[in-house]
C-alpha cells in the first residue's frame, strides 16, 4: 500500500507540475515580464490577481505558471547532463577497468569531496547568471552518485554469462555496453535522476539566494522566493506561492522517486 501511495501522490504532483510547465503560457493571464504596472505593486490576492501582485506590479499567478517551465527545465536539463556524464563514465570505467577505472574513480572522489553547491557557485561566477549557466553548473557537479551506481552495475553484469557469450561472438565493446549493460542500469539511474531533479530545483533557489541564479526578469520560482524574503511579514503572498510551488513540485518528485525505487530497483533496500 505504501508503494502505491508514494507513486500516487508523487506521480500526481509531478504530473501537475509538468502540466503547468507545458500549458503555463496558456494558463497565465498576463505576460510575466512586460505586464508590469507599478501602480499595482504588492496587491494581495483578489479576483483579478489570483495570487496577488509582486513588487513590480506583475501578476504572481502568471509568473508562477511561467516559472514552472524554468524550474522543470532546470531540473530535467541538469539531470539529463548528470545522467549522461555519470553513466558514460561509470559504465566505461566498470567495463574496461584498468587505468581508466582508476582515473574515473579519482575524478569521482574529487567531485564528492568538493561541496557541490560551492562548485556550482564558482561555475556560475565564471559563466554569469542565466539559465544555460545554471544547467551547465548543476549538470557538471552532481554526477558522482550516478557514476558510482552505473559502475557497480557494469562490474556485476560484465561477469555474467551472456556478456561473455556476446564477446565470444565478436560483439564490439560499445555494442555490448549499449545493448547489454545500459538497459540493466536504467532502473536505479532513473530513480537517482528523479530524486536529483528535486535537488536541482532546490539548488536553483539556493543559488538565487546567494545571488547567482537564473537571469531575472525571468520568472523562476527560486528567484521569486529569494526576492520576496524581506517581505515575508508585510506581504506574505509574494513568497508563499512560489514557495508552495517549489515545495509541492520537489515533494512530488521525491515521492515519485521513492515509489519508482520500490518498483525498479529491488536491490535498493539492501543498498540504502
Amino acid at each position: 500500500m505504501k508503494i502505491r501511495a508514494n507513486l500516487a501522490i508523487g506521480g500526481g504532483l509531478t504530473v501537475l507540475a509538468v502540466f503547468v510547465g507545458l500549458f503555463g503560457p496558456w494558463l497565465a493571464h498576463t505576460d510575466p515580464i512586460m505586464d508590469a504596472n507599478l501602480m499595482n505593486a504588492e496587491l494581495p490576492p483578489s479576483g483579478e490577481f489570483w495570487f496577488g501582485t509582486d513588487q513590480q506590479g506583475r501578476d504572481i499567478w502568471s509568473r508562477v505558471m511561467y516559472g514552472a517551465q524554468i524550474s522543470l527545465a532546470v531540473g530535467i536539463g541538469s539531470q539529463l547532463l548528470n545522467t549522461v556524464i555519470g553513466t558514460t563514465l561509470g559504465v566505461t570505467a566498470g567495463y574496461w577497468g584498468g587505468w581508466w577505472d582508476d582515473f574515473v574513480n579519482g575524478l569521482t572522489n574529487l567531485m564528492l569531496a568538493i561541496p557541490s553547491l560551492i562548485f556550482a557557485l564558482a561555475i556560475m561566477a565564471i559563466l554569469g547568471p542565466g539559465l544555460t549557466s545554471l544547467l551547465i553548473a548543476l549538470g557538471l557537479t552532481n554526477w558522482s552518485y550516478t557514476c558510482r551506481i552505473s559502475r557497480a552495475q557494469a562490474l556485476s553484469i560484465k561477469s555474467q554469462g551472456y556478456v561473455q557469450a556476446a564477446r565470444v561472438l565478436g560483439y564490439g565493446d560499445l555494442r555490448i555496453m549499449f545493448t547489454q549493460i545500459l538497459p540493466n542500469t536504467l532502473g536505479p539511474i532513473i530513480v537517482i535522476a528523479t530524486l536529483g531533479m528535486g535537488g536541482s530545483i532546490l539548488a536553483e533557489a539556493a543559488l538565487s539566494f546567494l545571488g547567482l541564479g537564473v537571469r531575472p526578469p525571468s520568472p523562476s520560482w527560486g528567484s521569486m522566493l529569494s526576492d520576496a524574503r524581506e517581505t515575508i511579514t508585510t506581504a506574505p503572498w509574494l513568497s508563499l506561492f512560489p514557495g508552495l510551488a517549489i515545495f509541492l513540485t520537489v515533494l512530488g518528485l521525491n515521492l515519485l522517486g521513492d515509489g519508482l525505487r520500490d518498483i525498479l530497483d529491488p536491490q535498493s533496500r539492501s543498498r540504502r
Partner: protein
Amino acid sequence: MNRLALLSGIAVATAGLLAALAPVAEAQGTTPRKGGVVRMTAPYASSFGNLDPHMSGRSQDGQVHMTIHRTLYIWDSAKGAPALELATAATASAGGTVWTLKLREDAFFHNGRKMTADDVVWSFTRLMSSGQGFVGARWIRLVQGAVAVEKGEAKEISGIKKLGEFEVEISFTQKVEPGFLFYNMTTSILPQEEVAKPTWATNPVGLGPFKFKEHIPGSRLVTERFDKFYKPGLPYLDRVEFPIMAEASARDIAFRNKEVDTSILGPVQYVAYNNDANLKKNILEVAEVFTRSMVMNHGVKPFDDKRVRQAINHAINTQIIVERLARNKAYRATSWLPITVPGYDQDMKPYAFDPAKARALLAEAGLPNGFEFEWTTSQNESWGLPIVEAVIPMLAQVGIKVRTKVVEVAVLTDLALKGEFQAYIGSSQTGPDPLQTLRCFHSATPRTSCNVSGYKNADYDKLLDEAGTTDDPARKLDLLKKANWHLYDAAPVWFFNYNKAALAYQPWVHGLLGNPTELVHQYPEFIWVDATSPAK
C-alpha cells in the same frame, strides 16, 4: 580668510536644505549618561575585510575604523563641511597650495604613546610606499613628491616637512582644501611600532575614542572605551559592538526583538517601519551624496547623440519608480549634483515624463522606430535589476528594446572601467566636494578615473577649469551651478535618484549624526544610551 569665506559660503548654501533634512539627533533636556553599550549592526557585508584603515575603503570597514582610528579632519555633518580634528589649526599660503597644520598635543595612541608630527609624516609616507596597495594613497598623491615615492624613486615625500614636534607643512601639486582629502579614514594616522608587529592585522591600535577588544570574524567586533581620549568627558559609552548582519530580513527581526540598537533600512523595511506608529519615531534620514543613474557609453551609437539621451530621460517615468520601487527612500535626481552639495540648484526641475516628446526626439535623431541596446546591471535592489525590470516596459513604449546583462558588482565595476558596456546602471559618489564630482565629466579625465561615459565638451571644460583656479568663492559657486545645468541639458546619463539613507534606532540611543557621506559612519564619541537600554 579665503578658506573661511568658502566654508561659510558652503554653510549658507546648504544650511537651508540641511535644516529641512536635519537629523533627529539629541533628545532635549536629558543629559548624556556615562556608561552602557551600543550594538550597531554592520549591514553591508558578511564580514569585515581589513582592520587596517589604510588598506580598506569599504563602507563597512569604515564603521570600525571610525571607532578605533582618527584622521587630521573629520566630517562635520551639522555644518556640511570638514572640521579640524587631529589638526588644530590650518593656514594656507602660496595661493592655497601650501598648508601649515598645527597638531594636537594631547592625542594618545591606545598603547599610551603621544602622537607627534613624526606619526603624520610616517603614516602618509607609508600610504605611498611602492609595492603595497594602500587605498588611501589616492588622497596623498596630490602632495608634492608623493608620486616619486610611489614609483620607488624616493624614500620620503618631499612635500611634507616637519616644522616642529606638533607642526607640519604640506605642499600640494595643485590648489586644494586639505579637509576634503584628510577626513577620509583611509588617511588615518597610525603608530609605526604597532604596524610593524605581526599581530597588526588582527589587533589594530589607533587614536580613536575606543580601543579594539575582540573580533569574531563573520559574527561581531567589540571595542571598549579608551580613557585617555583627547575630548574631555568623551566617549560616553563603555563599549561599542558591531554585530555583522548583512541579511535584511534577519536584521529586521533582530531589531524588533531589541537584540540590536541600529539597523539600516532598505526600501521595503523603510515603508514597514514608517507604517508602525512606534518605529517611525526613531528613523534617522539623510540625503547621502550618491547619485544613481544609468550611464551611457558615448562611444557607442546612438548614445553619442544628445537627443537620444534626452529622449530616454523623458521616456522613463522616474517619479513613479522612485515612489513605488524605491518607496520614496530616494530623492528624484535633477542633474548630477545631489541636494546637500553646493552647486545644487533648488529651482531645477527634473525631466518631465513625456513619451510623446521622447518619440519626437528619437525621430529627430533619425531613429523613428527606436533602437536596441544592452543594459548591464547588478542585482542590487536600489540601483540594479528591479529598476531595470521596471524601466524595460517604459522604454518599450517608445520603441527602445532592452537586453539585460546581469553581473556581480565586482564584474560591473570591471566592465565599466574597461568601457566594455553599452549602458549600465550604478551608483556614483557625488560629493562632498562638488568640483571633484563635476570633474568626472571633464574631457581630460580618463575613463578609469571616473569619466566612465566618455563625455567630451569644450564649453563644459572651460567652466570647470575656471572654477578650479578662481579665488572668488561666489564666482566658484556660480560656475559650479552653471556646470551642473550644462549636465542637465546634455543628459550624459539617465538621472535616476539621490540616495536617502534611513537608519532605524532604538529609543534609548542618542547622539547619532546624519552623516551624508555615509550614514553608518558615526563618530561614536557622541553616542550615548539612557538607562532603558537592555544591553549589558
